[in-house]
């Protein structure tokens, strides 16, 4: 039936059928090729972390997509439409000036006001030399306790917002810590130094997407709630808190709990 095959002659049927078939096959192949090429381009231009985050964000239940302004009580109910990236949020300004209605509390944990908090339980502190120190917040410290290993990126590494900043392990559980900010690693610290990384931000630093002040209590309340829910097993004790304060070294204290799920729920990606 194809040219070159014995006894071939064109008919309308051949032309029509072949055209349709070739069109369909080409469309499928072009689609596949487009997706592949665009993937390669995204990987090359460093958009991968953002896309991964968007995908993750898309999977979050609505209850976990609460806007920071709702956390601060500036608005009754608002679901974040921007994957928690307030820098591109057109409505940010509309709510930012409203007065918060929640009273400041930190549930017995240490959340200093000089820092900006990321929902992945890291904080960012502007340093005097124009860099930003990045560390693990108190809730994460309490959960993990003393990590077994810490794998920090080498100085000079470019890291992307929401991409992996560094990795830790604890009780055979790997924890990927999300980066709160994009930039270049200029120095690496560790648990003992109080900070893990120092970043030089790419371009003008903008920390608008990080939580601070009155937003922190609302956020923490939700996080504790979720942690409680994840760790509450029918056969385990319901209490995470010792006298109202989250116990330190929770992973050591409750080795049998489903940390896989619990860490995921608190954005510490296992």
């Amino acid at each position, binding site marked *: 039936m194809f040219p070159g*095959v014995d006894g071939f002659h064109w008919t309308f049927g051949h032309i029509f059928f072949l055209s349709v078939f070739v069109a369909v096959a080409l469309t499928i192949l072009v*689609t596949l090729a487009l997706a*592949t090429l665009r993937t390669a381009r995204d990987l090359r231009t460093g958009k991968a972390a953002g896309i991964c985050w968007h995908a993750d964000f898309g999977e979050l239940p*609505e209850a976990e997509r609460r806007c920071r302004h709702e956390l601060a009580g500036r608005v009754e109910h608002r679901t974040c439409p921007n994957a928690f990236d307030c820098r591109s949020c057109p409505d940010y300004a509309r709510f930012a000036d409203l007065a918060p209605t929640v009273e400041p509390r930190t549930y017995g944990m240490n959340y200093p006001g000089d820092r900006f908090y990321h929902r992945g339980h890291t904080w960012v502190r502007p340093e005097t030399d124009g860099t930003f120190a990045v560390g693990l917040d108190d809730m994460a410290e309490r959960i993990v306790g003393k990590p077994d290993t810490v794998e920090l990126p080498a100085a000079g590494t470019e890291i992307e917002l929401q991409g992996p900043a560094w990795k830790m392990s604890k009780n055979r559980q790997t924890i990927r810590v999300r980066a709160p900010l994009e930039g270049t690693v200029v120095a690496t610290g560790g648990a003992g130094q109080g900070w893990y990384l120092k970043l030089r931000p790419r371009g003008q630093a903008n920390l608008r997407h990080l939580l601070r002040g009155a937003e922190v209590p609302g956020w923490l309340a939700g996080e504790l709630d979720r942690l409680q829910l994840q760790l509450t097993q029918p056969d385990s004790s319901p209490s995470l808190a010792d006298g109202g304060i989250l116990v330190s070294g929770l992973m050591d204290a409750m080795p049998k709990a489903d940390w896989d799920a619990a860490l995921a729920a608190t954005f510490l990606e296992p």
Partner: protein
Amino acid sequence: MTSAATGVVMADRRLQVRGEARSSTARFALWLAPWVLLLALGIYAGGLCLYYGLNQTNMNNRFAFGLWIFLDLGIIALGAGAFFTGFLVYILGRTELKPVLNSAVVLGFICYSGAMAVLMIDVGQPLRAWFTFWHPNVHSMLTEVTFCITCYLLVLTLEYIPVVLRNRQLRKLPPFVVFEHRMHLLMPVLAGIGTLLSFFHQGSLGGLYGVLRGRPFAFRQGFAIWPSTFFLFILSAVAVGPSFLMLVTAAARKLTGRKLVPSNVFPRLGFISGVLLAAYVALKAVDTLIWLNVTSPAVGFAPWEYYAYKPFGTTLLFAEIVVFGLLPAVLLVQGRWLLPGAALACCGILLNRFVLTVQTLALPTLSFDPFLSYTPSWQEVASFGGVVAYGVILYSLSYRYLPLFPQSKEQTHVSGR
């Protein structure tokens, strides 16, 4: 527990969808075990057919098609839910059906890949299957079927890949996530192509029988080059696809004890299924009347004779149109007995495919032909059992390790609080 077993349990846990309760590894293994056995038996039986040839089956020169073709047609029709749901979601924008989309894609992939596997055993020389692409006969319905099914299986694979890439271990690799994202953006194109392909091959499968001038039981008049069965097959497949999707989802819900989809999805699917089924039944009835009164007598065949041989009596025709057609249509539209309605509809389409495949061949054509019957051999039954097992296993694995029902996490949360 040995360390190997611990390792398996750990690996199993690590692959599971995060934050959703799944049964224990042991329970899951226990569930899979019989299916794996059935699959192994099916592979053995299929191997026998490939190694020793089709003499392993009970098919013969008169019953050139048998159990396999009947069930292939059946599962391809049931798998129509995949393209139809994609069409509804991406092309018509019915986003309320999005919760079942992944599940529909996996089901479609299972049905089509299973049917392809059986077809490869069913043809005498599978190694020459590609000749169809080199020497295609454009006038043959089977060419259309082969082209469309091959392309559509490719489309389904492309649709299934993103679902697989959402497995949480694979997601740790950014290229996969990005690729999935990019594929996702292009999905409407694939949904459109899939709809076109499905439309034509579901139709061509019906045309397969409708063009058989030599088999007046199957032969139908039609429009242009397409006999009426072409359109009836499309309509019946899109009518039953959502029903089957509903049945499988309901079975998964029953087995897992979890609410997998929002409560508005089933009535919606049922309504679509019911309305289409009603349209199908109406057209089928008209077609049957024309066939019995015009088409058949014109070529010298008395319609009463089609139903003169037991067990193919007129009850079968009645069952096909009323019990498995009209009744489920009413049940589905009315929305109270959705699952029984869906089950009846699925049985109806299987009965229709059975009648067209088996009765067509069993009925005599020459005046001195006897009426024949055939019983499939164990190899035929077992290879098909293998395909069913393959489907169950693939669906179970997909359910366990892939986010088949993306909204189910939210459903759990809502119900959990």
